[in-house]
């Protein structure tokens, strides 16, 4: 918000440089953003918080400075001359028909005005704060708004039908053309100012064009009212019309200030137009007198701040701020804040007033004397840390993406609805909540591969969003792990041949990650998903529960993200993973074998339709044989193996705890296994 240095110095005597003045106000809660020269003047930009409408003008800001610096405030001196022979109530009338939205409506009349340009001093002031001078009457109302903070509006009295003002709610279908030339449709809940025929202003927001001040105006009705903040805010938002007046009304104006502001402004209008102020005031006030009394306990001030501060200092600050303070021995204080400080209503508000003018820097620095048994990280948090570490050990770098995506992103990963919608998105393509981590990761992969990296491995952990079962309930936020892998060649050592990354790189990473949480039974089964290449997708199961999927993305998906080579992706639910974990039974080690195991290799040839899982299951399924482990060490297709067949080299370790096995036993075990493989899978030994 802009302020003029010269204007401010008219309100308060200070020798502070602009920089020092800004620092001082910043220290009491009115932060200076910047300042710059403006002709002979200096313009400040202060950020005035929404709870301090009283500081959105030069006198108000000056008042804070006067309290901070201990100097006096110089309020404008004026006397309402009332030098016109005419009595105001014989020239016009005002009435409030919606007292719930307008507690007080005050009007003064100025006759015989000659509307022209404002004098240079007035125009310069307005220009300094960024306003365009319009004419002497309108400029005077703007001047007083920026001087005292109360919004005013001037009507051309001759244009008001019936020479009357009625403050009422708009009628259904009623319309008004506002000062900016736009015709606006009014809603029945909006408060308007009307004459006896039609709307002439949107209360607290903007006047109407039909009754605006022009060069031909001779009689002015000057409005100074108090409107209900929420009503002005709703109207201003509904019309998309934000003005200096609405900005202040919606933050709360001083109901006691209407006459004072009107008098000041009428005096100024008379001065700059040569007009005469009619005798008397037109007013309809239904709001009760403002008087808030706040109980203040000095020990509460000290207790809440942790500061030792004397009662006389507290009292002095409050009084300089315009509060009346009543103290009687042994009792709490009774403090009545000034009417323009609508933000002061409870004891803690006064604590802040005292603290801010005493200086936040004077409050000591201590630590809470609260002793709690430390909780540390929770199990799910520790688990997430381990998971993230394990994925990184597989060479995946951690990404962090916006959770805002496009409907296309969600649809590509199987959410036909496109996902939860954002009603007021900031950008196209960021109007849905993500349903999967994969689209963001694919964007990252494409970004990196386009910069000529041979391979990209990225992962992310974060929430995805599922629509709530019932409208209005919160969506289901599910924590997931997503991985993508792609590029021309997998990370490799110079001693190894170059190869493209494949499914098993991804599967291995997911296996290791899940196993970082403990000895878990992990299974993989073929699956079909609309976004995976048929036959190249798998489902990951832990303890029989499906956690998610992994596989090669369909060509059309990789094309959509402009990815050239095969892209592998996988996504698992960390919530499902947590649910699949065994209970919190303490981990125990397995005693080491004291007798050696015996290992034997089998070279099998079997029909290509059988899976390794079936081979292993068949071996382990032979009853009464102490199989310690089964490991695939080779897999081969093509000559000399017949077409349609697969060769598998399997290493089996037998181990019988507590005793050494003899070779006759081992041969018998192998025979039974070979029989089983032949019976179940039609497997034969290579070379036989």
């Amino acid at each position, binding site marked *: 918000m802009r302020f003029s240095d010269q204007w401010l110095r008219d309100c308060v005597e200070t020798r502070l440089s602009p920089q020092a003045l800004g620092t001082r106000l910043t220290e009491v809660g009115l*932060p200076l953003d910047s300042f710059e020269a403006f002709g002979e003047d200096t313009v400040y930009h202060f950020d005035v918080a*929404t709870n301090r409408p009283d500081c959105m003008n030069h006198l108000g800001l000056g008042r804070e400075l006067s309290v901070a610096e201990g100097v006096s405030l110089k309020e404008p001196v004026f006397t309402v001359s009332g030098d016109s022979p005419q009595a105001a109530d014989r020239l016009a009338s005002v009435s409030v028909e919606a007292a719930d939205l307008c507690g007080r409506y005050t009007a003064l009349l100025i006759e015989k005005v000659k509307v022209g340009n404002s004098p240079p001093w007035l125009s310069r002031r307005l220009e300094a704060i960024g306003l365009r001078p319009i004419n002497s009457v309108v400029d005077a109302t703007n001047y007083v708004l920026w001087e005292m903070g109360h919004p005013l509006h001037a009507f051309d009295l001759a244009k008001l039908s019936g020479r009357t003002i009625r403050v009422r709610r708009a009628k259904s279908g009623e319309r008004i053309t506002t000062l900016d030339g736009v015709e606006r449709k009014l809603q029945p809940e909006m408060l308007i100012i009307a004459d006896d025929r039609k709307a002439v202003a949107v209360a607290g927001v903007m006047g109407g064009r039909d009754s605006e001040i022009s060069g031909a105006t001779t009689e002015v009705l000057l409005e100074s009212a108090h409107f209900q*903040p929420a009503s002005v805010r709703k109207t201003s938002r509904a019309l998309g019309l934000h003005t200096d007046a609405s900005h202040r009304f919606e933050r709360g104006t001083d109901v006691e200030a209407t006459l004072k502001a009107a008098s000041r402004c009428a005096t100024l209008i008379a001065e700059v137009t040569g007009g005469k102020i009619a005798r008397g005031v037109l007013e309809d006030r239904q709001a009760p007198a403002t008087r808030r009394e706040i109980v203040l306990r000095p020990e509460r001030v000290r207790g809440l701040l*942790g500061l030792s501060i004397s009662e006389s200092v507290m009292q002095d600050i409050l009084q300089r701020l315009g509060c009346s303070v009543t103290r009687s021995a042994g009792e709490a204080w009774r403090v009545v804040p000034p009417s323009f400080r609508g933000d002061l209503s409870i004891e803690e508000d006064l604590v802040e007033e005292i603290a801010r003018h005493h200086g936040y820097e004077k409050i000591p*620095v201590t630590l809470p004397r609260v002793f709690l048994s430390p909780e540390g990280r929770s199990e799910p948090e520790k688990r997430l840390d381990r998971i993230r570490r394990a994925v990184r050990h597989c060479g995946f770098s951690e990404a*962090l993406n916006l959770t805002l995506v496009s409907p296309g992103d969600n649809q590509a990963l199987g959410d036909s609805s496109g996902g939860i919608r954002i009603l007021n998105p900031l950008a196209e393509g960021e109007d849905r909540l993500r349903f999967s981590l994969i689209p963001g990761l694919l964007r990252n992969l494409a970004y*990196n591969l386009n910069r000529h990296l041979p391979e990209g491995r990225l992962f992310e952990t974060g929430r995805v969003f599922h629509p709530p079962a019932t409208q209005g*309930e919160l969506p289901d936020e599910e924590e997931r792990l997503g991985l993508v892998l792609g590029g021309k060649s997998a990370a490799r050592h110079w001693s190894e041949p170059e190869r493209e990354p494949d499914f098993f790189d991804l599967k291995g990473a997911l296996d290791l990650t899940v196993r970082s949480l403990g000895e878990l039974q992990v299974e993989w089964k073929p699956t079909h998903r609309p976004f995976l290449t048929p036959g190249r997708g798998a489902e990951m199961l832990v303890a029989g529960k499906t956690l998610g999927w992994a596989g090669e993305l369909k060509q059309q998906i990789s094309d959509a993200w402009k990815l050239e080579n095969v892209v592998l992706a996988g996504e698992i639910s960390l919530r499902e993973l947590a649910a699949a974990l065994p209970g919190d039974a303490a981990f125990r080690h397995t005693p080491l074998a004291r007798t050696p195991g015996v290992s034997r290799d089998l070279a099998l040839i079997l029909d290509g339709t059988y899976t390794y899982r079936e081979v292993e299951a068949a071996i382990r399924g032979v009853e009464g044989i102490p199989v310690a482990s089964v490991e695939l060490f080779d897999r081969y297709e093509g000559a000399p193996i017949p077409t349609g067949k697969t060769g598998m080299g399997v290493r089996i370790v037998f181990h019988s705890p507590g005793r050494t096995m003899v070779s006759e036993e081992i041969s018998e075990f192998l025979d039974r296994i070979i029989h089983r493989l032949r019976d179940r899978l039609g497997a034969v030994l290579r070379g036989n």
Partner: protein
Amino acid sequence: MQDRLQSLRKRFDAEISAAADAAALSRIRAGYLSRKGGELSQLLRTLKEVDPAERPAVGDSLNNLKRYIEERLALAEGSLVAPPVSQDLDVSLPGRIPTLGSAHPIHQVRREIEEIFLEMGFSLAQGPEVETDFFNFVALNFPVDHPARDTQDTFYLEGGLLLRTHTSPVQIRTLQARKPPLKIIALGKVYRRDSDVSHSPMFHQVEGLAVAEGITFADLKGTVLTFARRIFREDTRVRFRPSYFPFVEPGAEFDLSCVLCGGNGCATCKRSGWLEMGGAGMVHPEVLRQSGHDPQSVSGFAFGLGVDRIAMLKFGIDDIRLLFENDLRFLSQFPGA
């Protein structure tokens, strides 16, 4: 006997120092250790002639000397350059290093922040990213149709829901679920309709809340100062300025002395020496009351600050978008803990 052993050792030392090649070493080895003619082997054989009372001590000495000679010979043999049998191993070739992925800088800073507060006795809390108007605004003393809501640039969803604009709803969820005394922090994603070099529509905040009997504004200052010094530098200063947030009273914003220039003024702090860091204050009595706590018997402080900003300052990142672009050349600079 012991004297003989001493002189034998001296002689061995002299010989091995003079040995220049493998042939010489092999001669020395044979001279001392060979089973047939080796001097030590011969001495061992004479052991049975020694007085039985001295025999164990002499035996030990003999064995020690034998071990000594074996070790020195092994060392000397190892240090000799073996004659080139084939091509040398090119030890400058890269070793097999498993590829280690990096941890995102936000997550690194997140962990660091959490560790500091855990050590200060805070617990970790969480809340949903999609919130109701009640938790994001009403319970935090932002009335309906109040202009303070304008500062929040909210994303709205259907059904009256919204994306949380700050982590402060976690204050309410915590106050509803737990009894004071409590000290928590909540770190997570928040959303505002804003995007430029220093703003992303999604960013991260950390919220702190301490509620107990006798909590003061001075405790708030001490907590923020302790944190700032641990996360940045030991000489960091904190400046509290009065400010307005509907859910705290008294309210404040706090600045840190610039972590880059130490407060002397640089481009990062726009020559002011200070960096705006976050908002704070004493929990508003209405917030306590709404969650079922008596503001006359307990008090509390709350603060919130930007995690992304901390990461940017710590790592010298000047464009927030770099944090969400996920360029591997950028990410791989953060090996992580």
